[in-house]
């Protein structure tokens, strides 16, 4: 009987141990910016889900395409209907690991790279994205600025609007993480 109690305790410890490695996004936003001489398009999405396993640096990020908010409602409709095809490709995601020498137990600012697969519009692209990881009082923040070539993800821009939409979209991510309970 004692053995069972011991095992249960061990199990609980292991489970707790696991969850202590998991950081979960509590808030954050991803925005993108397309700049052309004709018009600028920017959109923000605050509906972010992300997890980091500090034990092995594993990182996952998912954002609903329908959650992007544009300045003009027609842009939002076109984004979902014509370009992102959000009914079919509901989410954009990144799966990979955080590379860099980070001591998750110490406060500090660490330059990091996220190495993995970026999936947008249903098309995978292997990426190495640079960013900055800040740890302060048990709260983690990740920021990153990177470019997405629309062509890489098979998003077609018709000739008629080619002057209105940039081929390379500037993307900014800012996420706050807290220990998952």
């Amino acid at each position, binding site marked *: 009987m004692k*053995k*069972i109690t011991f*095992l*249960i305790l061990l*199990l609980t410890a*292991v*489970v707790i141990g*696991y969850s202590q*490695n*998991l950081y979960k996004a509590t808030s954050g936003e991803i925005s993108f910016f397309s700049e052309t001489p004709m018009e600028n398009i920017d959109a923000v999405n605050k509906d972010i*889900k*992300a*997890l*980091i*396993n500090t034990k092995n640096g*594993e*990182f*996952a*990020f*998912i954002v*609903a395409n*329908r959650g992007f908010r544009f*300045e*003009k*409602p*027609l842009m939002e*409709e*076109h984004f*979902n*209907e*014509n370009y992102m095809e959000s*009914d079919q490709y509901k*989410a954009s*995601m990144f*799966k990979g690991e955080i590379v860099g020498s980070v001591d998750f137990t110490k406060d500090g600012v660490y330059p990091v790279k996220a190495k993995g697969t970026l999936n947008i519009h249903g098309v995978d692209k292997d990426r190495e994205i640079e960013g900055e990881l800040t740890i302060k009082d048990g709260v983690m923040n990740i920021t990153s600025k990177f470019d997405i070539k629309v062509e890489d993800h098979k998003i077609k821009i*018709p000739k*008629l*609007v080619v002057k*209105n939409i940039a081929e390379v979209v500037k993307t900014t991510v800012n996420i706050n993480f807290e220990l998952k309970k």
Partner: protein
Amino acid sequence: MNKVLFVLFSFLAISAVAQDDLMGMLEGEVEAEKTPEKVIATFKGIKLINAQTVQTTKKRTLEFRITHRFGDMGGPDGKHTVWGLDNASNIRFSFDYGVTDKLSIGWGRSKMNEHIDVHAKFRFLEQKKGGIPISAAYYVNGAISPVKNIPNDDFNNRLSYVHQLIIASKLNKAISLEILPTLVHRNYVDQTISSIDDSTVVDQNNLISIGFAGRFKITKRLAFVVDYFFTLSDFRTPGNGFYDPLAIGVEIETGGHVFHINVTNSAGIIENDFIPNTTSSWDDGEYKLGFNISRVFSF
């Protein structure tokens, strides 16, 4: 004892697997929070050809539309007017403004009957994926015909009204359909003329008509569009020179513009004109080339 151990280790293994797949955890969360999604872009514009669509002008945007109907393409004059291009059966300018995402108001002016109209559309039902399969809107207008002479010189005789229910469904990416039960009220109708078949049948102030409309996408930006109105009236028969308006066309979307090229037998563009007063017949070559252009401005 061994059994207990086995069970415990199984749990350990399961939790370890679950921890491994972060993306799986996130996707599980997304799935759990899922609510029925609003179906967007049932139609590209607020009007198809003759028919209203269930779409309203989006919040704080102004939609400017130019609608043009040339003359008859066939018939006796067709070839002398370059298939009607020399003539303008009707021209309409209109402005629509989105008060909210569900309510839009507008103003327009047509050449036919010199109609000046004010109108409003309220969308009260949204189609949802995995939820309600239709969306619906109510459309109302009031029009005044400021022509030189009006019967009995009575101001009220210049007015007409439309009430319309618009029920639409986007079946899939390519096909959207709608049905439009409509009531047109004209304050004045000439009841001195009776039907050629039956002398007791005269024109009515209230006309009930049912519209049918559809969009069939060919590519992302190109669609085939059609609309048709069936009017329930003993007086409005081909024998008395009245026909049901049928319009077919092609819809092209380019960014902030939606462009239509169409062919229709109705000269009227607003319901107050095309439901009671379509006197041209497809059979007689009295169909007209037309176009609609809309431009959306956001504030």
